């Protein structure tokens, strides 16, 4: 199952709950304000880095760029374009959105 996080970890617990309840091995895609969870040197970066041992992590390029943070992504998080987004949904679905 693909887990999609769409809200900032600094505003809501969507990412925190996703990390608690997503099955190990399941991929996590950060989009919209969820991409703030993909950034390094933040208060949540340690939790995200440790979750990367259990979950392949992805972030949507367009949303990173729109927010001016594309150069701050944690090493090891795969940045995907919209085609990559679609591939994840098709290959790893069903999907569940954390909002």
């Amino acid at each position, binding site marked *: *199952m693909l887990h999609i996080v769409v809200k900032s970890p600094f505003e809501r617990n969507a990412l925190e*709950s996703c990390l608690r*309840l*997503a099955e190990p091995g399941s991929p996590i895609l950060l989009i919209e304000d969820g991409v703030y969870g993909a950034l390094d040197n933040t208060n949540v970066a340690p939790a995200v880095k440790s979750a990367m041992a259990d979950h392949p992590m992805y972030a949507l390029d367009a949303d990173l760029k729109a927010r001016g943070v594309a150069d701050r992504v944690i090493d090891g998080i795969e940045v995907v374009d919209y085609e990559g987004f679609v591939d994840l949904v098709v290959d790893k679905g*069903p*999907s*569940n959105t954390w*909002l």
Partner: protein
Amino acid sequence: MAEFEFETEGVVKKFMFLNRKAPYGTIYALEVLETVLISAAFDQEVALAFVDDGVYQIMKGCDTAATSGMKNFSKTYRALEGYDVEQLFVEKESMEARGLTEDDFIVDVQVVPASEMVALIAAQDVVISG
């Protein structure tokens, strides 16, 4: 035309409605509940999970009379049984973090730890979150 026709008769999928929002501050809880009833009407296998502030949706004693026109939908959770929706799960950690116990809920639920909730979510064909 024919290529858009699908054989759906008798197809039953496992649906989970993952409730994470408190009931009356936003429209999420009510919208999810209406979708639950639609899914049940189509004879799908429906489970509800209450996680994070979603556990507040099933509090006993909700009374919206003093609010301006807000519909009290709490009793709808008790009607779910009539739609054969009987799988109601509450995440133990979310419940305890809010100082609640099973006795606080308007319906019978199964309280499960996060580790079991992980498996329940992973086993679904469709997960709809609100």
